[in-house]
């Protein structure tokens, strides 16, 4: 019963996978097979992440089986079970949520298939359930934002910072806030005077910033947990008759294309990169695992800081 259900599932998943990537199902020689269960396509960032993984797999000659879970954990679990049934060499996925993975990860372990997490972590007591995690360090991104501000804000006097937080309770929101606060604590001039969530969206970022601007005439700096909220807030600042980038310093995180356009127009000061292009790093790790080489458990993606002076030069290279 269970077996037939599984094989049915795997057939469905295989069908999905075949549709998702145009790649011959039967490779000639013994290629490495990687099963990747993506979260979905919820943002520009995620779309770039998907493209990076697909391209890197192709370049590395790895047979990629890809599935899109449409932001649902049960879909991801189904996809992972499908990969186990297909006996792929390595399974990788970006967990939608942090909990509830133990059962399926134990099944993978029992089938002796190593698991690599990307982008987000899982909450589990058993550390042996996955071999490595490749992800951004959100706290470090917050620290970089804080460092940039301390180094570049020269006007004397108190600095009033307003903060647009990400979705309440999400890891990037919590950690970007923590990292930023950690750094600005060093200089008592810098204070966060207002902080509210903008749900990571342009519309909410704009709406909240409008209210901030009316309630408070002394805003020197805006720190937004992602670029989209910063872009919305920039519109609100302009509507208030102030110059974003000059009257109010604007700091964003992610370094998406829209942020570069704003920086080129002089409306945004800096964007801290949160790199979705972890495909190449993932493929390297997969090869090392299959070759039996030891891999580090926590691999941080390579990320930069882009102040507005570098925007025009960097813009043509941006893929997301």
């Amino acid at each position, binding site marked *: 019963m269970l077996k037939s259900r599984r094989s049915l599932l795997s057939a469905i998943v295989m069908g999905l996978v075949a549709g998702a990537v145009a790649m011959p199902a039967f490779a000639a020689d013994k290629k490495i097979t990687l099963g990747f269960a993506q979260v979905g396509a919820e943002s*520009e960032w995620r779309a770039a992440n998907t493209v990076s993984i697909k391209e890197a797999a192709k370049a590395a000659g790895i047979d990629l089986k890809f599935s899109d879970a449409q932001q649902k954990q049960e879909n991801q679990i189904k996809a992972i079970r499908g990969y186990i049934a297909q006996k792929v060499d390595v399974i990788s996925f970006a967990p939608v949520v942090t909990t509830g993975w133990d059962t399926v990860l134990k099944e993978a372990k029992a089938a002796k298939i190593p698991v690599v997490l990307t982008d987000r972590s899982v909450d589990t007591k058993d550390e042996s359930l996955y071999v490595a995690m490749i992800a951004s360090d959100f706290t470090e991104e917050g620290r970089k934002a804080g460092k940039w501000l301390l180094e570049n804000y020269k006007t004397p006097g108190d600095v009033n910072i307003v903060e647009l937080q990400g979705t*309440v309770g999400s890891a990037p929101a919590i950690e970007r806030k923590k990292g930023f606060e950690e750094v600005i604590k060093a200089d008592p001039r810098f204070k966060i005077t207002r*902080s509210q969530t903008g749900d990571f969206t*342009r*519309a909410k970022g704009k709406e909240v910033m409008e209210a901030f601007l*009316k309630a408070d005439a002394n805003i020197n700096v805006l720190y937004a947990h992602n670029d989209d909220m910063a872009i919305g807030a920039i*519109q609100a600042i302009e*509507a208030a008759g102030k110059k974003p980038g000059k009257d109010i310093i604007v700091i964003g995180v992610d370094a998406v294309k829209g942020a570069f356009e704003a920086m080129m*127009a002089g409306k945004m000061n800096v964007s801290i990169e949160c790199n979705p292009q972890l495909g190449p790093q993932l493929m390297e790790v997969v090869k090392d695992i299959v070759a039996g080489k030891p891999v580090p458990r926590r691999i941080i993606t390579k990320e930069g800081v882009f102040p507005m002076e570098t925007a025009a030069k960097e813009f043509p290279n941006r893929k997301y």
Partner: protein
Amino acid sequence: MNLQSISKGRLFWPLVALFLMVMVNFWFNPDFFSIKVVNNGLYGSVIDILNRAAPVMLIAMGMTLVIATRGIDISVGATVAISGAIAAALIGGSLEIKDGVQTYVSNTPMSLAILAALGVGLLCGLWNGFLVAGVGMQPIIATLILMVAGRGIAQLITGGQIVTIYYEPFFFFGNGFFLGVPFAIYLVAAVAVVLLLLVHRTALGLFVQAVGLNPTASRFSGISARALIFWVYGFCGVTAAVAGVIIASNVKSADGNNAGLMMELDAILAVALGGTSLDGGRFSLIGTLIGALILQTLSYAIYSLGVPPEINLVVKAIVVFVVCLIQSEALRNMLFQRRTRVEGQA
């Protein structure tokens, strides 16, 4: 029967709630009523609230009619996303830099793009109307279909990305000012005036009420309930599409994932706060507008008072709960007439 005299009495408590919300804002922010002129437009908290409430007010007006016919439309948020995506996709999603100057390009003429967005909104609404009136599905199930599928459709149109719009004239709908007042407010006013005239000066209001109160009886008295319900859902779809265009214009982009998210609930809440019963029948458009303003004033207070984001929703829930209690006749009777039995249990 004079509809106006009925609504007057029923508007009293929603107005009290709105007044209290405004006073809370004023208490914490003495500049709340100050309005100045910035960039040719009026600029101030009150203007913000009106402008921000515009999309919900529009949708809630459509929702009021739907609810009056004993229906409900939970797909409006998805319709907002679809129409915004269509407008954005048709108008222009690429920035062209010629000799270092950013220029604005529009793929299709703007009027055509907006008509397309509104047309698709109408289709979405009529699809719901067809399922409810034609097929006879329960409204919440019928519109649930589009609520779930609609976001997928919007994602398909935008290719899963946030589509940025680079066409200046389009920004007028959500950002522009006419005689100093945000343009979106005129849109709301226009829809409201037309609707009020239709409802109060023609038999339409009576028909909608009749269908909501007793569909069978209204059919026997010669009202084509099916056609009426079909078009009421269509109208609701159009109001959602107008809201979608305003939102896309306001943030100069379309976000298939987040545009209009949970807006159906705000619209339904606005209708309920405005004193329209979710059982259908009697309805109040003005009450709905006040309801939408109560919600936006509340959000505004949360943003500007420094409520920690973690408890935003709790604060919102408590206020909505209290406003509902204030409006409850049964509760008022209980408080003021000490233990006299409430007749007829509302």
